[in-house]
């Protein structure tokens, strides 16, 4: 159920990218898709009743092994979040510059190139 809903969120983002005409909305669609994938990765690593993969001095290692969630997806998501932010920054940069040139965020009006 949780996985399915996460996939729905991904689809919502995809729908936004494919159907919207406003550049900012398209960027929002991309951000939503990225969020959905990140959540999906973390959910893959979740364990019922799990604890964060951080050891403390008094932690028993066997107990920790049995209860800790998967640390690897978390590392991947950290990377993915930062990549998403980088792409967002560049995209907004291009959007600002396009707005300067065309005076609009509507991609149907930004059409000098044929095809």
């Amino acid at each position, binding site marked *: 159920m949780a996985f399915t809903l996460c996939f729905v969120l991904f689809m919502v983002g995809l729908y936004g990218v494919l159907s919207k005409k406003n550049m900012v909305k398209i960027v929002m669609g991309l951000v939503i898709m990225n969020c959905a994938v990140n959540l999906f990765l973390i959910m893959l690593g979740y364990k019922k009743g799990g604890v964060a993969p951080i050891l403390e001095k008094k932690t028993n290692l066997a107990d920790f092994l049995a209860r800790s969630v998967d640390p690897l997806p978390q590392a991947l998501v950290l990377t993915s979040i930062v990549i998403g932010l980088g792409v967002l920054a560049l995209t*907004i940069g291009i959007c600002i510059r396009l707005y300067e040139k065309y005076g609009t965020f509507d991609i149907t009006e930004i059409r000098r190139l044929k095809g």
Partner: protein
Amino acid sequence: MDKSEKPVGMTLIVQTVTRWLKGPIILYGIYIVFTGHLSPGGGFAGGVIIACAFVLITLAFGAKFALGRVGKLLASELDSLGALMFVTIALLGYVGGSFFRNFIQMANPAPPFRIFSAGTILLSNVAIGLKVGASLFMIFIILAVIRVVEDKDGKMKMIQKKQGGDN
């Protein structure tokens, strides 16, 4: 910047609160960077928090304040410097046997749960914190501060600002 801009920054209340908060926020960011291997956090989280402190200062006191103090140039230097530091750590490992080898921890393992217990991880955290903090502040400056200036007749308009130190 346009001279017709409204009074720099936000209200006195915001400015006062910012003046109180900026120290603790930066300190908290540094703490997060330095204990990343022991508790939640690390270079990324800490770096972003430090960047947010500077963003807060910029928003509260106006663009001139932040640009005068930190300066885009300094931020971009720090950006490159953090990245260079991280690559250097990797290359030091390369010289010592293997790219990205944790040469400190492998040579003489320190007891766990201390600040200096994880070898190059601490150094990497600092490098990443420096890099991410500078990067995100740069993103904020170039996207949100420099380009948006209010026109004389009240309409928002983009202007092209001469960027210092540019070639």
